[in-house]
């Protein structure tokens, strides 16, 4: 049964200290509002998982929420390093974190297997690389059909919780998403508990008018939350653009652990929720991120009665 609620309640009920938590979204649809809420609620010892940790995990790591991180590319996209991630891995600041590392294809293949309850999944990657030497979950098996061939395999990933974003959902948690869908859908199907955060909750008829676009069914969603601008400074296709300035600025903001904590104190602890964060961002900033309207041509689903 899907519960429609606010971010604060959804996070408090869905996530426990020590959980493995997958935050979905490849560059697009990153659940920043939920990440900030986890920081505010003071979570510890989380095993955080994202293909690209991005700024949201950098912030959560600096805040001391994480004891382990599973990932495949830990950089600031288009800018450079994730400095808080590096401080944790290189210097144990603010605490040591265990890392569990894959390539993108390796990690999304783990989700693919987790979403479909497969025992493992073969991938044409990792052979000849050093990654398997440092991650015992990446293994090789003989191809049962061509026994001379060695095949790399990865096991299913079943996070305790997945937090995913979409453009819109019905109150039942059926979600429409478009643009770069990345790892979002398999993350939702792979997890035990799913928190779905959307730009808009709309009526059921809107969702049912275009079933092909309903990639996440409400039957797998535990909490649905309407959180406008919940992905800033990443973006939501058709709603607002990526705030590239924020990504560039993060490089300076996160230069030291102290400067990172100052930012968290102002932008995360200094506000009660995403609405206050958005108010603090200001109208000008949001207007600059607004795209020009560009609607897809409608399709005729047909009615057959």
């Amino acid at each position, binding site marked *: 049964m899907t519960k429609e609620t606010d971010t604060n309640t959804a996070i408090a009920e869905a996530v426990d200290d020590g959980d493995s938590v997958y935050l979905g979204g490849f560059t697009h649809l990153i659940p920043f509002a939920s990440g900030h809420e986890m920081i505010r609620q003071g979570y510890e010892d989380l095993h955080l998982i994202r293909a690209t940790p991005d700024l949201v995990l950098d912030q959560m790591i600096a805040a001391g929420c994480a004891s382990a991180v599973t990932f495949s590319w*830990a950089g600031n996209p288009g800018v450079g390093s994730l400095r808080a991630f590096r401080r944790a891995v290189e210097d144990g600041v603010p605490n040591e974190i265990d890392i569990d590392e894959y390539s993108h294809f390796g990690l999304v293949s783990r989700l693919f297997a987790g979403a479909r309850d497969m025992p493992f999944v073969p991938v044409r990657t*990792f*052979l000849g*690389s*050093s990654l398997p030497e440092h991650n015992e979950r990446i293994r090789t098996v003989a191809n049962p059909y061509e026994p001379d061939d060695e095949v790399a395999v990865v096991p299913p990933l079943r996070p305790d919780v997945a937090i995913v974003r979409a453009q819109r959902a019905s109150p039942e948690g059926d979600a429409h998403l478009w643009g770069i869908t990345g790892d979002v859908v398999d993350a939702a199907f792979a997890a035990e508990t799913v928190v779905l955060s959307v730009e808009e909750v709309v009526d059921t008829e809107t969702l049912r008018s275009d079933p092909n676009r309903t990639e996440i069914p409400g039957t797998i969603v535990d909490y649905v939350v309407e959180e406008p601008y919940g992905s800033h400074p990443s973006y939501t296709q058709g709603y607002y653009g990526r705030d590239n300035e924020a990504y560039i600025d993060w490089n300076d903001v996160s230069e030291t652990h102290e400067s990172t904590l100052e930012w968290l104190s102002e932008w995360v602890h200094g506000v009660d929720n995403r609405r206050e964060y958005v108010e603090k961002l200001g109208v000008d900033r949001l207007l600059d991120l607004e795209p020009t309207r560009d609607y897809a041509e409608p399709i005729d689903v047909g009615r057959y009665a």
Partner: protein
Amino acid sequence: MSDLYYTDTELMITRAALELGNDDTVLVGVGVPNLACNLAKQTHAPDLEMVYESGTVDSDPDALPLSIGDPVLATGARSIVTMYDGFGRYLQAGRIDVGFLGGAQIDRWGNINSTVIGDYDDPKVRLPGSGGACEIASNARRTLIIAPHQRRRFPEEVDFVTSPGYVGGRKGRDERGLRGGPEAVITDMAVMKFDDAGEMYVETIHPGVTREAVQEATGWDLAFADDVTETPTPEADEIRLIREELDPDGIYTGGDE
């Protein structure tokens, strides 16, 4: 005023663009690869298909993307697929002709490290890691490596193989079932190719750069072709396209390292 009307970065962009054909499907990265692909598309390869790791197929961006997942890559694309399908149906299935790779360390076999400097468990510098690089290196029909030419970047041995090149030579690559392999390494000093054994050699040297300087910036006894020539320089209209249309704010081409 010298007659040197282009920067090192601009030369790397124009030289990389020459590697791209009109029928190619290319997996694009941001920065120099993105500019090289867009330059090729606006000059000799108008039908070049650009695919991004984020799953956008045949993107036609209205503005320069900062990241490989920017919304400009989605709007107007031919198709958008999940990461699993992009890496699976397109890359793993052999539908990507060219992949671009960079890295902190590159060895003579074209093995690339973008994971860690020093020991993996006690790193001196923790780098971002593979992302899609390992599977690009394993499945693209050919890969192009772009990097500044510095001795620390071209060591005898890489600290970690993130992306396999000719591991154990061309034969070792075949034995592992890896498709393709490194085609060229384009630096700010030279262009290198790979011989029949899979070892890197210098094919052309950029104008104003000496053979000794190239060797000095490389951590092993570098092989040179018998007939090393000069790298072709950018055309004036290519420079105009880069400066006026592709990177008007000079985000990637604004300064030389």
